[in-house]
């Protein structure tokens, strides 16, 4: 083959055509990217070139049922600087130092820092209104004002484990703070600007400030005064018995609202980092599970009545033990209660009596009723970390398991489950879902954003059954093991519980959880209150729910009903006086309106064995606690409130 010019020219042509083809491909690719894919890449460019400095929103507050803040957000203006946007750091620092009364050098050093954003610590944090206005007036490029907020706790450590804690950026870490974080946190705002790869603002581009949206306030069903009663009682129990843990809950049975919930030990939420995580991560009222003991007999009783397996007037003989599947289960009272009615079985919390009830009901009906009452399942309370509790699987329930379950052993339940179950007895047979949050409120407009209404889970017993159980429980307080909860006029019904705790596979001889669950007034309860005291250490006295836990609930219910303006009633079951156990009662005189000296003289002369303590200043007694006509034990203290005028 000869190399001719025509061969060469032909090859030129081929290559030229090929080149045209390749150029076609290049042009096609450019067109594709700049038209069809342009949207995608513009988005990517936007992400790449805009820097966004987050501006935190003010966190919503927790309010109590009356709208008073329980956990507050305190905010103030804070100066932040975006160093890359500051054109003249020197003069900027000078101007800032003048307004903020800070060290020029320190501010200058902060402004020169190589970060996206810097807080002007310490001079520029939480500045007052006047400084805020002055800074705003300066209109310095790269200097911004933002609201900075911190949590403040007007109630201190009260109910701290319920509220939970927030972290360094204000995010909820536990408790309600965690559960409602999405409601409280609001929407972050941002300072956005166009920047080069090293974060410097590209000249002649706009920056935008997007205002943050504050989070909603969360109004809780909690009542501050009732919570204070609860906290006071817990303090007293702790001082007296040095227990490991105490848990208390107060509920409104008609709605399922939780009015108070608190645990001991608590902690100072401002310094939560210094305490054990268990304190702020675990709310014992919903987390802790234990054998309820006798308080659980309420469920057995209600089921037996509902299933027509007992009338309370029927008689029963307790020899002091009960034989089940070769085991001899003893009654707590040595020698037994002898012959009694089933009402007395309840009053005496007699174990053999309840075993009989359990056998009459049968395992299927009893366990299905227990589940109906909400045990073995979460109540659905809006708190993190709720436990389910443990029930015997039905297939493994023999006569022994049936017997122990009937008087509250071998089942494991949470405090909140017991409150809701007894709440169903109190409200006439409806199991409610616990309601802790009533509404979300927009803090700026005060507008209710969302409201939550009570939720009935199911009917568990009939109204008539519930009424009979309440009547029996009123007898327990007035005439039986719950006598220490008795409060004149408040018709308290309730049940004690004393459960031994299993330690190393055996029931411990010292470690008990004593509890009491009560409601009042018995005919139409407005409140259910519960206390569990884990490992009380009383001096020289046996550990019984009746002596340790019952008075706590008596006090809380009486005080709460008083502030709820529920009038005392005289139609309740009268108290059986127990000589040597119950104190002699004395009726309080009316001292209000008298001159202080006269009041004291009258007290002395009347021969009542009562003490006086005084609040306030003045010559006249303005009011008194307890009020006139109430019965108090001899030796009680009457508090007189003094004022200048009659």
């Amino acid at each position: 083959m000869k190399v001719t010019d025509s061969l060469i020219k032909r090859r030129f042509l081929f290559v030229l055509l090929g080149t045209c083809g390749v150029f076609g491909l290049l042009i096609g690719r450019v067109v594709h990217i700049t038209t069809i894919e342009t949207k995608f890449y513009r988005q990517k460019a936007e992400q790449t070139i805009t820097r966004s400095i987050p501006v935190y929103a003010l966190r919503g507050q927790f309010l109590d049922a009356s709208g008073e803040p329980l956990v507050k957000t305190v905010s103030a203006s804070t100066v932040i600087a975006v160093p890359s946007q500051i054109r003249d750091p020197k003069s900027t620092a000078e101007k800032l130092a003048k307004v903020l009364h800070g060290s020029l050098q320190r501010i200058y050093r902060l402004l020169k820092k190589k970060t996206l954003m810097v807080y002007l610590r310490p001079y520029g944090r939480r500045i007052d209104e006047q400084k805020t206005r002055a800074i705003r007036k300066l209109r310095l490029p790269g200097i911004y004002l933002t609201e900075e907020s911190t949590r403040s706790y007007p109630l201190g450590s009260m109910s701290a484990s319920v509220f939970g804690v927030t972290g360094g950026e204000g995010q909820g870490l536990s408790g309600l703070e965690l559960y409602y974080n999405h409601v409280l946190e609001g929407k972050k705002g941002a300072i956005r600007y166009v920047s080069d790869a090293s974060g410097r603002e590209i000249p002649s581009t706009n920056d935008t400030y997007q205002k943050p949206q504050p989070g909603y306030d969360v109004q809780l069903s909690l009542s501050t005064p009732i919570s204070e009663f609860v906290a006071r009682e817990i303090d007293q129990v702790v001082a007296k018995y040095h227990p490991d843990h105490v848990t208390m809950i107060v509920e409104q049975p008609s709605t399922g609202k939780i009015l108070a919930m608190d645990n001991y030990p608590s902690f100072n939420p401002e310094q939560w980092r210094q305490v054990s995580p268990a304190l702020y991560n675990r709310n014992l009222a919903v987390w802790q599970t234990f054998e309820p003991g006798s308080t659980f007999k309420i469920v057995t009783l209600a089921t037996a009545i509902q299933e027509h397996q007992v009338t309370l007037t029927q008689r029963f003989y307790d020899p002091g033990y009960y034989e089940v599947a070769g085991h001899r289960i003893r009654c707590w009272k040595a020698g037994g209660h002898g012959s009694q009615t089933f009402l007395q079985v309840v009053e005496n919390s007699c174990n053999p009596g309840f075993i009989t009830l359990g056998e009459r009901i049968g395992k299927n009906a009893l366990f299905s009723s227990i589940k109906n009452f909400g045990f073995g399942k979460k109540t659905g309370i809006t708190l993190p970390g709720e436990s389910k509790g443990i029930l015997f699987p039905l297939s493994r329930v023999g006569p022994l398991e049936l017997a122990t379950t009937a008087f509250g052993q071998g089942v494991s339940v949470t405090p909140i489950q017991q409150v809701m179950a007894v709440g169903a007895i109190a409200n006439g047979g409806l199991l409610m879902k616990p309601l802790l949050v009533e509404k979300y409120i927009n803090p700026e407009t005060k507008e209710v954003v969302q409201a939550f209404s009570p939720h009935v889970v199911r009917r568990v017993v009939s109204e008539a059954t519930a009424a009979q159980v309440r009547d029996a429980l009123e007898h327990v307080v007035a005439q039986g093991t719950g006598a220490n909860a008795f409060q004149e006029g408040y018709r308290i019904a309730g049940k004690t519980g004393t459960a031994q705790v299993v330690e190393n596979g055996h029931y411990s001889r010292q470690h008990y959880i004593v509890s009491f669950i009560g409601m009042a007034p018995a005919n139409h309860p407005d409140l259910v209150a519960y206390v569990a005291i884990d490992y009380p250490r009383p001096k020289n006295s046996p550990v019984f729910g009746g002596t340790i836990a019952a008075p706590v609930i008596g006090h809380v219910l009486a005080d709460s009903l008083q502030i709820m303006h529920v009038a005392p009633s005289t139609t309740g079951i009268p108290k059986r006086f127990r000589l040597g156990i119950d104190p002699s009662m004395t009726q309080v005189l009316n001292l209000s309106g008298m001159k202080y000296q006269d009041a004291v003289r009258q007290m002395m002369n009347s021969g009542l064995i009562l003490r006086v303590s005084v609040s306030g200043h003045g010559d006249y007694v303005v009011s008194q606690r307890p009020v006139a006509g109430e019965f108090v034990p001899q030796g009680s203290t009457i508090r007189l409130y003094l004022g200048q005028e009659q």
Partner: protein
Amino acid sequence: MHKLHVDLSLVVVALLLVVIGVTMVHSASTVLSGIRFHDNFFYVKKQLLFASLGTFLMFVLARLDYRKLQRVAGLLFLLSLVFLVLVLVPHIGQVRGGSRAWLGIGAFGLQPSELAKFSLIVYLSAWFARYPMRVQSLIKGFLPLLLITGVTLMLIILEPDLGQSAVIGMTIMVMLYFAGARLRHMGSLVMIGLAAFVGLILMAPYRLSRVVAFLNPWQYPDTIGYHIIMSLIALGRGGLLGVGLFHSTQKFSYLPEPQTDFIFAIITEELGMVGAVFVLVLFLFLLYRGMLIAMRSTDRFGMLLAAGLTTVIAVQVIINVGVVTSLMPVTGITLPFISYGGSSLTLMLCAVGVLLSIARQSRIG
């Protein structure tokens, strides 16, 4: 005296590309030159200087008879090889961007590989013109030429500048084909070339990572895929009409060295699809004129020289735009006439001058 015949359209297109180049180098480099030299005009001033020098040389060469080159071809090539060796010697060759590829003092430097690229084209054209039939012989023509080319490429790979050697390798292959090499020789050469290329890529981890990044840039957006993504973002951001001259944001240190290898991305970002396609069409026209001159040339040297010079421009444009549009892995190749770079710009304009000279001779003939 004959009236001077100049291929006016070629001059206009070449100068238009240079003007676009200078403008875009200015736009793309202001940020970087501001940061590096505290002078926003640092790069553009140098580019303007070389554009002037190149244009001057272009007209000088256009007036000269290109056939004189045939006589000095050997000497020119030898000189290039000496430079290529010299540049590898530490303290003599300057390192910029990881390659010991510059000879010179201070900021002004000559890239011997640029010179070698053109002198090899001239030398091969002269050789083909002198022994028109030998290229068909494996022993007497094809292999010796490959050896000469191979030595040149080897020296450049040692800098290391794989991109430049790829450009030269491809150009020489096309020239061998033009000159009448046997297709079966060409076929084997393509195979060997590909194998060598793959081998070189596998040898250096940074080259391999570029290929990996090319295949899946979004998996490595912050490391090896960064260049590609930033380039594509610039293109996509430009859209149909661009964000406007001087309004690129990608040049704000997102796209590294925006004034050289990725200038086409800045062009597309600021001037949009319209501007980018316009530039590509200008190049296509330039290539068409170049090949037309080659076809009309009356002597074998002129034909092959014109075709070779045109080919080197085509190869560089294709690789550069291919990289910017992510059709190829990242390779450091400048866009002729447009990218910042003194040696490249000056020599490209000289090449146009030689093309003009060939065109002039063919008309006279």
